[in-house]
């Protein structure tokens, strides 16, 4: 099971398109779009948001994301109306990046607080602290040979894979370094086909994580 996600937008198309996009990164997460009014016009439908929140909850709770202020209010009101309001969190964050980040975090099995935080952190991608030298850790340099480099889907695949190991992994490209748990941070590296990335890992399963990452990269992320 995983945390469910509800996308509250003024536009049905926006919510549906984003749900489709996010589902690419998180195939096992229940992502429910709640966009527009029932007659197809622009707006937020309280009843639909409540229904979507109930539908998205598979037992681990729900994180709701919103596009504009009134969608936030509708989402908050919907959460307050739940039998157990603590089962759902309205996450602050940019809708598109936040939804992707939340979906990947949910796919990785994180709890609703962590999923909401992933969505919120998606708004500040520059919030990357330079990692300390990896004393006692392992590292591996890999060349990206797939067409799109470390773009959305490969980045999501990598994050998902790394999240299965008890290890902290950073990915370095030139002077930039990204957290191996953040799809957006990885994407912001802009690593392309032909680039060489340096993965550093710490933790009990550092070596295994790097081995698995190497297999992924060598296998062109299954593309």
């Amino acid at each position: 099971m995983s945390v469910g996600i509800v996308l509250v937008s003024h536009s049905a198309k926006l919510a549906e398109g984003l749900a489709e996009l996010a589902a690419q990164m998180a195939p096992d997460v229940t992502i429910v779009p709640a966009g527009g009014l029932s007659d197809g016009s622009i707006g937020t439908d309280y009843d639909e948001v409540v229904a979507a929140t109930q539908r998205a909850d598979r037992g681990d709770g729900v994180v709701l994301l919103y596009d504009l202020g009134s969608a936030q209010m509708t989402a908050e009101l919907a959460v307050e109306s739940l039998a157990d309001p603590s089962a759902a969190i309205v996450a602050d964050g940019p809708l598109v990046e936040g939804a992707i980040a939340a979906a990947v975090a949910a796919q990785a099995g994180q709890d609703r607080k962590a999923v909401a935080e992933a969505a919120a952190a998606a708004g500040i991608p520059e919030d990357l602290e330079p990692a300390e030298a990896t004393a006692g850790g392992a590292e591996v340099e890999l060349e990206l040979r797939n067409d799109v480099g470390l773009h959305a889907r490969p980045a999501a695949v990598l994050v998902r894979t790394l999240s299965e190991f008890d290890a902290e992994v950073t990915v370095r490209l030139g002077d930039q370094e990204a957290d191996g748990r953040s799809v957006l941070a990885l994407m912001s590296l802009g690593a392309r086909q032909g680039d060489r990335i340096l993965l550093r890992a710490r933790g009990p399963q550092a070596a295994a994580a790097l081995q698995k990452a190497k297999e992924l990269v060598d296998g062109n992320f299954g593309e």
Partner: protein
Amino acid sequence: MTCKAEGVAAAVRAAAAVVAEHRAELVELDRAIGDGDHGENLNRGFTAVVAALDAGAPDTPGGVLKLVATTLISKVGGAAGPLYGTAFLRASAKLGAAADLDVPALLDALRAGLEGVQARGKAVGGDATMVDALIPAVSAAEKAAEDGGDVAAVLTAAADAADRGAESTVDLVPRKGRASYLGERAVGHLDPGARSSALLLRAFAEAAR
């Protein structure tokens, strides 16, 4: 003087009529600084409220306000739905199951409504929102009550203050909602939410007379 459920229902119907009458004006105000749907949305909501009252009005003032709240939340899109919905919901919770609405209960309901709007919209005075109409309205209502005013006098004082408060939004730079994206360019425009708040309070005051 107190007011029973029928009186509150009558006031809500009067408010619905006022909203219908001012629908175009609210649309115009919102078109200038927002997305132009405020009058339409509010009218749709209050039309549904009247239909719900026709289908069977609750027998307490709090029950009537709760019906208004749930209907507005469901039928009004945009920011006005959750904002007015929260206001009526909190007011209704304050009134509880009491059969009569007296002046102290009215003050409690007005305060709870304002607090609800502020909690939901996170707006403070001076942000050019409905809060700029509601804050002076609640203060004026408290003052009128201290002076011994009855329900009608308290609501009239609130409506007068709300009118002035709404007018004050013309000179303000919006800091909430879609109008905030316009910044300085929104100065010179009356906030549609402040205007509709003042209209609703006026309708309640007229109905209570």
